[in-house]
């Protein structure tokens, strides 16, 4: 049963067509990878899906609901979380506070609660902290909870960003080049972590350049080229596909 269906998504920036007729589905519980050369529209696709842009044409159906063009904060509330290609943790606050901000849409404190029912608010905050700690423990970050996020090592900051995205128990997690700048050991750890998330029932959609990583993680790959869907298949199919090799490395004739 499909969790997300993208129907003929098109995005134009002025005269530039960044995405053209991209259709795909993501099933519940899958790890789907998206690859493609630089500028092929991978990040644009995620930005459209997560509500930072509205697509020019097409539809996103998520959990049988049309979410096309909704603002980002509403889409997060519906259960789609994401991370960014260029790291975007909140640098000047602690690791724990970062995670708590990720829980924002799962805490239903109103202004009335803040001032008039502060005991209830306190209880809710206490539960939120507990929940945040379980996620930190999952990622083995609980020892660093009091450290400012900017003082974490780079690989841990990446991990923190993922934790911040999953603490709200999303149905779908979008990862935009999660291992950019990571060393091979950190990459393997991340691959294990993503598979762990899958066992927790989170569907993962991951954009990545690193072939070794994406091959080890994804069950299905979608190849994007020049803003259009180029190929789709299992990692081994994609790896052996002559056309895919051609868009990455050029035709034999070009050499």
């Amino acid at each position, binding site marked *: 049963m499909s969790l997300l269906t993208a129907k003929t998504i098109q995005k134009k920036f002025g005269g530039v067509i960044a995405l053209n007729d991209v259709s795909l589905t993501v099933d519940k519980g899958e790890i789907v990878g998206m690859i493609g050369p630089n500028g092929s529209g991978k990040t644009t696709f995620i930005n459209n899906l997560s509500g930072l842009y509205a697509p020019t044409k097409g539809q996103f159906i998520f959990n049988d609901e049309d979410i096309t063009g909704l603002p980002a904060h509403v889409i997060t509330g519906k259960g789609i979380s994401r991370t960014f290609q260029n790291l975007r943790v*909140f*640098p000047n606050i602690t690791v724990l506070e970062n995670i708590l901000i990720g829980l924002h849409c799962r805490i239903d404190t109103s202004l009335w609660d803040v001032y008039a029912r502060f005991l209830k608010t306190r209880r809710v905050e206490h539960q939120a902290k507990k929940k945040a700690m379980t996620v930190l423990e999952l990622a083995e970050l609980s020892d660093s909870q009091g450290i400012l996020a900017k003082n974490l090592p780079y690989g841990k900051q990446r991990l923190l960003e993922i934790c911040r995205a999953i603490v709200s128990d999303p149905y779908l997690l979008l990862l935009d080049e999660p291992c950019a700048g990571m060393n091979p050991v950190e990459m393997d750890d991340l691959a294990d972590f993503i598979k762990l998330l899958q066992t927790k029932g989170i569907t993962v959609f991951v954009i990545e350049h690193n072939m070794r990583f994406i091959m080890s993680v994804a069950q299905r790959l979608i190849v994007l080229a020049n803003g259009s869907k180029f190929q789709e298949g299992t990692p081994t199919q994609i790896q052996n596909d002559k056309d895919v090799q051609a868009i990455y490395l050029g035709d034999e004739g070009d050499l």
Partner: protein
Amino acid sequence: MENIGSNSILNSPKYKAVAYGMLFIVCLLLPKIITNMYYLGIINYIILYTILCMGLNLILGYAGLLSFGHAAFYGLGGYTTAILIKRYGFSFLPCPLLSGVVALLFGILLGLPTRKVRGDYFCLLTIAFGEIFRLVAQAWIGFTNGAMGIVGIPIPSILGWSIRTEADFYYLGLILLAFTYITISLLIHSRFGRAFIAIREDELAASVMGINTAIYKIIVFAIGCFYAGLAGSYLAVYQTTVTPSNFRLEESCLMIIMVIVGGMGSLLAPVAGGIVMTLATEYFRSISEYRMLIIGVIMVAVLLYRPQGIFGTSAFKD
């Protein structure tokens, strides 16, 4: 939730309770210790500026919105109280709240453009609002009595407690300050406070966390302005006059400097900023306009040697 350093005695709840208790007693007895009216007057101004800065700190320190219009909201509160008491014969009791609400409503109004206008442009907008307020207060003679201001605001009394001496005003200020501190503390330690910080740190990431950044910016701006209105109300009865020159751009600048010196984004920092800067302005009063020069030097020194301020957590545009 055990934090790092939880073994230190400073963090034990017992110690905290004792410390707060002592502070409370000292605050209560202060007018008995300091009997000099001049010094007590300075302390009252410190309290006044601390309330103002706590409000501004919400806007600037927590949410990262630079507002040069805080004096205008301060003024709105001052004029509201002055006009309600003098013209409509209100008793003082509801005035601080009503003044705060008037400032809050105008705060919502000025907060609305934050949807579209960001950063430096929003800052320009707040300067414009501050100037418009001052010019209207100066020109609308029928309502605000123009540049002369509203004078002779009678001595306030709350439920039979007539507030006339410096010590009385000290206690009134303390009540307002405690109210400000408690309400801001409640707000900051909820998801709202965290949302404001997230907006300051990275607005785009905040929106992806499910925070409706447009609404939250209006909320934080309006609530910050509420406290300015509260302080304005205090000023009106304390000074017994309000004039447009009380609410010039320089006042807004001074508040911003106080928040920066005290440290942005920390609950108690405005107290430090308020104390340091009020004492500095008082101490250098003899050299009149040159004292702004010295205040500038203090600010530059703080930015150079301690950019996060005395107590602050976040550096100004790191």
